């Protein structure tokens, strides 16, 4: 029994959500999926540990959930979209998570993104054929 190696595993700073992650992190993703329902979110809030037990989320996974360690959860195989169901209502945006991954502040992360806009309109004008206001 072996997990086949994929070329995408060599992309730096990247965790491709494939069978290996989906398999190992199935209980935690199942718990996160349940947050689509408000009653489930409330039940979790009343007793996070008991809610983890209900879904068979144990050990380091359970610890990460209870501590709301979103970064740790992602590294353990929680899917980013599923994690967003827990993180966003609790005030952690995907940009906060991205910043944490890089060890910078959210403001720094957003500034790096905004810099992409510098010179964009000129670049598109040069390219030709683009709508430009």
């Amino acid at each position, binding site marked *: 029994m072996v997990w086949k190696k*994929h*070329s*995408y595993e060599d*992309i*730096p*700073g*990247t*965790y*491709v*959500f*494939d*069978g290996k992650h*989906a398999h190992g992190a*199935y209980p935690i*993703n*199942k718990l*996160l*999926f349940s*947050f*689509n*329902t*408000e009653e489930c*979110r409330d039940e979790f809030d009343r007793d996070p540990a008991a809610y983890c037990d209900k879904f068979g989320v144990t050990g380091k996974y359970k610890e990460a959930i209870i501590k709301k360690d979103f970064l740790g959860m*992602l590294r353990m195989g929680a*899917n*980013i*979209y*599923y994690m*967003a*169901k*827990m993180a*966003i*209502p609790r005030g952690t945006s*995907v*940009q906060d*998570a*991205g910043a944490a*991954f*890089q060890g910078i502040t959210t403001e720094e*992360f957003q500034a*790096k*993104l*905004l810099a*992409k*806009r510098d010179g*964009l*309109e000129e*670049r*598109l004008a040069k*390219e030709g*054929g*683009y*709508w430009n*206001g």
Partner: protein
Amino acid sequence: MARILGGVTSSHIPAVGNAIANNLTQEHYWKRFFDGYGPAQEWLQKVKPDIVIVVYNDHGLNFFLDKVPTFALGCADMYHNADEGWGLKPVAPFQGDAEFSWHLAESLVEQEFDICTCQEMLVDHGFVNPIRALYGTHEKWPVKAIPLAVNTVQHPVPTAARCLKLGRALRKAIESYPEDLKVVIFGTGGLSHQLQGERAGLINIEFDLECVEKIAHEPEWMTKFTNAEIMELAGTEGIETIMWLVMRGALQDDAKLIHKHYHAPISNTGAGVLVMENAA
């Protein structure tokens, strides 16, 4: 017979829906992105499709990871939006066309695209936001809509080549439907973005512009990339760009480019709008 009028592409990220819901579309951050939708909205108003087929990926609303269909087609009369975990009020339900969907499913399976048929299908932001960006938000939507979900979330996901072929099969399926329906295909998602890992925040403008250009004029170009290569260039979530190829494959090879718009960033994403029109 049913006829494909053309296709439109759009990003579908949650922030687009939030900007619309919170009336932010004319704020500096959003204005250029949303203003670039104007010609696409006008084109839709002019050609007036009866129905749009929205190619998108589900992000864990309708499908959980217990069953992940590679391609899934809505085959119902109605599709509901629902809470995705953020407690937002769902938008009004979308009217489908079950007879048309089942014809598409039959034709696709005959053409060896063994698609998953769904008689109940909740539609998430991936489906809803492009429609809102292109039609505005309505209590009664001005167009019927059919969801066509592509798995871009859990690998293995289909190749770019397979998506282009699905589009070509979809074209045959649509054009063999006996009713005089006017159809437009929305290819949604993309362009480059990566939400997770130390490489989060990646936006590759050069690759995005190349994708926009090539998908419009030479879509086969995209099929030379493996999914690993696309993710390396466009980010893990940028793999969604393969869904544009379903739209492109459904159109005539020489479909006319009507409108081309690119903006970055919107949230973490490079965003592109294409409008392409088939010859009558």
